[in-house]
């Protein structure tokens, strides 16, 4: 079936540095999402993105976070600067306009902030 690709699968970074997580969503999808899962905890909504704009963001989406999808390329999550509590698995997802609540997820990027 349709696949969402996330690159890289694992990223190790020093606290205070910038990191960009990349997501290649399903080609005809229009809605894009990032979710965060800390080890052993529930997956939590971070942000959704449509038509070039952030539609909604949760309280977990700190000022250091930003998202974009320039010219239909990767949908990215940037964290600048990173903090220790940003260590988690970040899942990208996408959905199409006719079925917004059926999300297609990537396999996740494990971010380790040292």
């Amino acid at each position, binding site marked *: 079936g349709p696949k969402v690709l996330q690159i890289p699968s694992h990223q190790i970074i020093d606290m205070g540095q910038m990191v960009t997580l990349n997501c290649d969503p399903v080609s005809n999808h229009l809605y894009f999402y990032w*979710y965060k899962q800390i080890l052993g*905890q529930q*997956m939590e*909504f971070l942000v959704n993105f449509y038509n070039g704009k952030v*539609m909604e963001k949760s309280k977990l989406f700190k000022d250091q976070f930003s998202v974009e999808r320039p010219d239909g390329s990767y949908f990215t999550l940037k964290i600048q600067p990173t903090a220790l509590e940003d260590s988690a698995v970040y899942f990208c*997802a996408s959905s199409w306009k006719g079925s917004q*609540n059926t*999300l297609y*997820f*990537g396999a996740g990027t494990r971010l380790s902030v040292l």
Partner: protein
Amino acid sequence: TQTVSQSDAHVTVFEGDSVELRCNYSYGGSIYLSWYIQHHGHGLQFLLKYYSGNPVVQGVNGFEAEFSKSDSSFHLRKASVHWSDSAVYFCAVSARYNQGKLIFGQGTKLSIKP
């Protein structure tokens, strides 16, 4: 506040057994309820969803779920499990006005014994 509760962190059954994975939610308003499956090392995959109509919905691979408004539940069932059903199962709720913002339960790990 929307909440989703999966009371069983881990369920173990034998291959060929039936299984029920429990999900209870708390939300006031029109919602979508869904189930996702996550095999180890992969992203979440959509199984099924409910919005209205017949409270029993069918999904892929023989899974079904039943909505109960009185119990605020959306339990997932399968009549005869296969070893390939071993995975973590997530129940999720989303509001009608923001369908892609999923609130997830903690997940239930289903283990199948041969």
